[in-house]
């Protein structure tokens, strides 16, 4: 600009002197023209400097505009271009208008969404004068050169970087995170709160992740981290919740010296860094930084400022919120709570309370409200104007009652708000009980003497007027007026027992507390029992209780009393009573103790003028009848084939859950026969068919079930029923009717068995006699009574059989163990010794299975002769030589030899053995297993075997019997006759 002025002066050199004056005159105008009218030149920005603020992720531009010709400030526009990664990649273009002064250093900042560390940025700008004083056209200057902003230069050689570090963002905003990996081979995985995420590659080694609408997770921030081969790298996104506008902003003062403004700050922003709260007052222009997030104190100045215009500003990194109020100091007085509230001079009905208040100003008064509470309810309320000390007399109080006095105060000049309450409890003094105790009595006569149990109800708190300490009972004998008996019963007893004689008495009961006695309650007792024979009536209870009415007996009744037991099922009875006036002839007795299904008995007394009670009526009832809870225990008797009897006489009807109206007898038959007469068919809950008989008389407790079938099974059940229903149908008992003739059999068989048993006993006792009579050991044919009988028969030729006349076929000799001892020449054995000895042959007899002999040996035993021998242990014994071979018995098989032997034996027996002790067994043998000719004579004289006897004939295989050849051994004859062992 300076060079263009010189060009215009040079052609005018000759006229320089002449024109000097003219030019000097024109100079001011010229100067003005050059400033206003000269053509503007574009101004290029100079000293453009670009810096990076990593904390705020901002590019900071700083430059100057050098214009020596313009001394005044004027408007300019700066067009700024920002490129990323390379200059040609322009990502931002912005015109920045400002007023520029000469040599002014200009600043401009740009916040990058992408962390600046992750990309190289280039910046350039150009300018244009945009001032109205500069005529158009307005031209842009040339672009400045590109300035490079590279934050990566400052990074170290760590293989992995994640940016931005510790980014503070507001909830709901968008955030871009990037990482730079120096190792291209490294496989980088990135996580946002443990969730693997994938980003967008911006450059060869730069990846970006864009998170939109980020949300608050925790105060300590949201973790984003990437991991390659080495340690993880990450950033913490500190997400702040949106700062809310303070609510309920208000101010008040307690003492007109300090203002306290409070507000609700709303939800916490969730960051450790809390928002700041500042209180501005526009009239005074003062402000204060609040120490709390919901309260701020403001000192009232001494210049009597009454009006305040407060503005509360809440501010955090992202937002600024403000609320304002216009506040009149006088209208916002909230006094402090009064203090030192005390009751004084407390009597039974009055109390004076005092308290103090904090003064407000020098002349202001407070309006205090005194409340009196009893049992949690406000019963009195008084307003008192107080400057410093408050006092008030509370009256109409009840004795021995706890009260609470409460006081609160407000600014009297302009009521706005009550102060906090303070309270104090106190209890009024006691007074004598104001009412006589309610007394009733229970009279029982023992040996003609009345024993009176007095009951009284505790006085209500209203009437007790203090703690009842004891009760005085004064017994006055009306027949002996001078006789007084005083009893003191300590509280809380509510009864006492007094034994009287047969006089009439008046009993007075008073309750005493620490102040004095109550009025007396009087009860009169007659020395004789009254009329107790009053018929009991029934009644039904309702939800309200038991309504009842009665008929007065006398016109001079002073009242009536209804008494009952609250829990009659539990002993002892808790006696209750209700006093009624003389005009009452009905009432409803209600009690919280009444329960459904319980029978309550009421007695109504009439009170005479002499306080004597006469029983008027008895009533029983249920609040609500229930079905019987259990069935009677039924006793079954008289069971016959056609009937049985049921009885349940022990079932108490009075203690049931309802009035028992009767009983149902259920009968179930297995055969499903038809119901008998009087029964009706019914269905049980399990749909089974049953016959039911109804007994409608509750006093009938027996029932005969008739017309049953013999030998039939039945089930029966007896259950009572009330108006509410019947008892449980779950305990049927079974019964089976007996056979029709069984009793007859019993009547016959039992005597017969008894008779046989008697006969057996007799036979046993007379066995010896019978034996001697009927079957002696050796019967003497000639002495036999049978013979005498026969002789009278028609066959007179019958004689006694002679032994010689009988030729036996064979004889079997049975060995006995004691054979050696039973020889004819040997000693005799007593019957007792031989009684238990069995014939040895029985043990030696082989079974047929083991038989291997040539043929059976069949023997027949003649019991007529054998029995006695067996019994006595004797048998036909022959002397036995142990060494003698058994084959020597062979001749015995010859009939002649046998006869001889027998004869000899018999004769010897007669000669050597006493009669009756010898025996002889005859055995008939049909077939002999022995080989050889039976007719052949014996080669040797017969020698007796070992103890032998004739026993039952049996088929015995030969060859199996091999008795031991000992002296004591006994061999059966079959063994002796074995030809293989003994004959060969």
């Amino acid at each position: 600009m300076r060079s263009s002025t010189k060009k215009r002066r040079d052609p005018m050199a000759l006229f320089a002197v002449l024109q000097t004056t003219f030019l000097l005159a024109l100079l001011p105008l010229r100067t003005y023209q050059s400033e206003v009218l000269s053509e503007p030149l574009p101004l290029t920005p100079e000293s453009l400097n670009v810096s990076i603020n990593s904390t705020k992720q901002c590019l900071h531009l700083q430059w100057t505009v050098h214009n020596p010709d313009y001394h005044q400030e004027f408007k300019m526009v700066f067009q700024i271009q920002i490129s990323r990664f390379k200059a040609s990649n322009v990502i931002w273009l912005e015109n920045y208008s400002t007023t520029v002064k000469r040599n002014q250093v200009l600043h401009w900042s740009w916040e990058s969404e992408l962390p600046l560390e992750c990309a190289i940025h280039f910046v350039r700008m150009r300018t244009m004068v945009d001032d109205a004083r500069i005529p158009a056209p307005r031209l842009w200057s040339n672009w400045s050169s590109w300035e490079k902003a590279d934050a990566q230069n400052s990074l170290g050689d760590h293989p992995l970087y994640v940016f931005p570090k510790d980014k503070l963002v507001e909830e709901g905003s968008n955030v871009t995170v990037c990482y730079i990996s120096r190792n291209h081979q490294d496989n980088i995985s990135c996580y946002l709160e443990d969730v693997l995420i994938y980003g967008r590659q911006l450059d060869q080694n730069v990846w970006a992740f864009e998170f939109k609408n980020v949300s608050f997770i925790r105060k300590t921030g949201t973790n984003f981290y990437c991991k390659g081969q080495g340690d993880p790298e990450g950033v913490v996104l500190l997400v702040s919740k949106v700062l809310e506008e303070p609510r309920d902003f208000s101010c008040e003062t307690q003492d007109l010296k300090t203002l306290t403004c409070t507000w609700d700050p709303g939800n916490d922003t969730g960051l450790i860094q809390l928002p700041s709260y500042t209180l501005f007052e526009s009239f005074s222009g003062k402000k204060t930084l609040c120490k709390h997030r919901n309260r701020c104190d403001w000192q009232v100045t001494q210049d009597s400022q009454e009006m305040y215009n407060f503005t509360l500003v809440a501010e955090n990194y992202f937002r600024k919120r403000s609320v304002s109020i216009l506040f009149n100091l006088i209208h916002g007085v909230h006094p402090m709570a009064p203090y030192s509230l005390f009751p004084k001079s407390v009597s039974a009905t009055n109390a004076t309370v005092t308290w103090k208040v904090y003064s407000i100003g020098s002349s202001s008064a407070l309006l205090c409200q005194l409340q009196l509470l009893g049992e949690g309810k406000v019963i009195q309320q008084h307003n008192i104007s107080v400057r410093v000390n408050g006092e008030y007399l509370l009256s109409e109080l009840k004795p021995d009652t706890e009260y609470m006095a409460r006081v609160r105060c407000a600014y009297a000049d302009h009521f706005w708000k009550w102060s906090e309450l303070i309270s104090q409890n106190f209890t009024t003094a006691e007074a004598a009980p104001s009412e006589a105790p309610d007394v009733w009595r229970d009279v029982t006569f023992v040996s003609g003497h009345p024993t009176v149990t007095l009951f009284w109800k505790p006085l209500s708190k209203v009437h007790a007027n203090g703690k009842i300490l004891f009760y005085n009972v004064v017994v006055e004998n009306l027949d002996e007026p001078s006789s007084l008996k005083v009893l003191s019963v300590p509280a809380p007893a509510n009864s006492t027992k007094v034994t009287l004689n047969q006089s009439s008495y008046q009993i007075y009961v008073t309750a005493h507390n620490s102040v004095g006695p109550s009025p007396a309650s009087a009860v009169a007792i007659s020395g004789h029992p009254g009329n107790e024979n009053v018929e009991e009536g029934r009644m039904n209870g309702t939800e309200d209780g038991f309504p009842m009415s009665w008929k007065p007996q006398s016109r001079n009744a002073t009242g009536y009393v209804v008494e009952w037991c609250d829990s009659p099922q539990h002993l002892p009875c808790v006696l209750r009573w209700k006093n009624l006036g003389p005009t009452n002839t009905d009432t409803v007795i209600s009690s919280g103790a009444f329960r459904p299904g319980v029978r309550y008995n009421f007695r109504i007394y009439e009170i005479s003028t002499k306080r004597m009670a006469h029983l008027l009526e008895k009533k029983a009832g249920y609040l609500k009848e229930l079905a019987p809870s259990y069935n009677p225990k039924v006793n079954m008797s008289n069971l016959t084939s056609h009937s049985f009897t049921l009885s349940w006489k022990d079932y108490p009807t009075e203690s049931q859950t309802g009035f028992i109206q009767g009983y149902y007898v259920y009968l179930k038959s297995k055969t499903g026969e038809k119901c008998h007469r009087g029964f009706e068919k019914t269905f049980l809950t399990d749909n089974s068919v049953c016959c039911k008989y109804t007994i409608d008389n509750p006093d009938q407790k027996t029932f005969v079930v008739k017309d049953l079938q013999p030998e039939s099974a039945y089930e029966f059940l007896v259950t009572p029923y009330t108006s509410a229903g019947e008892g449980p149908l779950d305990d049927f008992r079974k019964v089976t009717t007996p056979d029709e003739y069984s009793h007859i059999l019993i009547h016959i068989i039992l005597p017969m068995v008894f008779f046989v048993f008697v006969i057996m006993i007799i036979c046993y006792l007379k066995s010896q006699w019978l034996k001697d009579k009927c079957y002696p050991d050796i019967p003497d044919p000639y002495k036999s009574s049978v013979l005498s009988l026969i002789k009278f028969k028609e066959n007179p030729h019958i004689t006694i059989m002679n032994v010689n006349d009988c030729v036996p076929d064979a004889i079997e000799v049975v060995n006995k163990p004691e054979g050696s001892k039973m020889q004819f020449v040997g000693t005799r054995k007593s019957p007792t010794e031989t009684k238990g000895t069995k014939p040895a042959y029985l043990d030696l007899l082989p079974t047929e299975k083991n038989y291997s002999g040539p043929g059976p040996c069949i023997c027949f035993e003649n019991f007529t002769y054998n029995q006695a021998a067996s019994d006595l242990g004797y048998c036909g014994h022959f002397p036995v030589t142990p060494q003698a071979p058994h084959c020597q018995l062979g001749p015995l098989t010859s009939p002649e030899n046998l006869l001889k032997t027998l004869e000899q034996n018999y004769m010897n027996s007669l000669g050597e053995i006493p009669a009756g002790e010898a025996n002889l067994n005859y055995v008939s043998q049909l077939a002999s297993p022995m080989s050889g000719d039976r007719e052949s004579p014996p080669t040797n004289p017969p020698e007796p075997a070992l103890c032998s006897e004739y026993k039952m004939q049996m088929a015995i295989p030969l060859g199996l019997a091999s008795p031991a050849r000992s002296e004591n051994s006994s061999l059966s004859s079959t063994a002796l006759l074995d030809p293989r062992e003994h004959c060969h």
Partner: protein
Amino acid sequence: MRAQRMQRTLLSLVLRLLLLCTVATGKCSGKYHELLLQLQRQADLMQDPSTLLDPYIRLQGLHSPVLQEHCRERPGDFPSEDALWRLSRQDFLQTLNTTLGLILRMLSALQQDLPEPTNAEMNVRGFGNNIHCMAQLLSGSSDPKAAEPTQPGPGPTPLPPTPPSSTFQRKLRNCGFLRGYHRFMRTAGQVLRGWGERQGRSRRHSPCRALKRGARRTRPFPEVRRLAPRGQPPR
């Protein structure tokens, strides 16, 4: 879980009351076994990760397996287990005392990063008081000043770890520190239990013998004082 926490709290309260009693009266218990048992119990209480590490991990969101893998004690933060076992009793107590000072400063810095006011700091202080008493008992002196440490401890540098530049790295660093803290207290408890067992087997380490040997002196939480440089062979 809640019951366990309550149980721990109660135990901690009892321990602290015992400790406060000791501190308040200004007297140390002269009963060696009682003091040793108390130290063992305190070490057991403080080694429990649920008292500090677990809440920290939960609060900072470091529960992912990737981060858990890198939440590990750094070498040099705390004396190694081998080193602790090789120390004499006096040196062990001194090392413990010095390390507790470091722990206290770290815990103080961590307070705002923990979910709720923990008793960890009080526990550490109480533990330090008992260490002081034990040192006194072993030295046979009732003068608290007589417990001045004179011998450096082994290995670790008791300076607090340099705080990392970024919040994320600081989280991991603190996590590793807390893990090391619990590990250190566990090892300390084992060593203390070893004292009890050895005491049962042999009376070689009785307080009387320790008195004869001469004692090294320990004061709870001395001024930050550098122990022996790393690599110094433990005594």
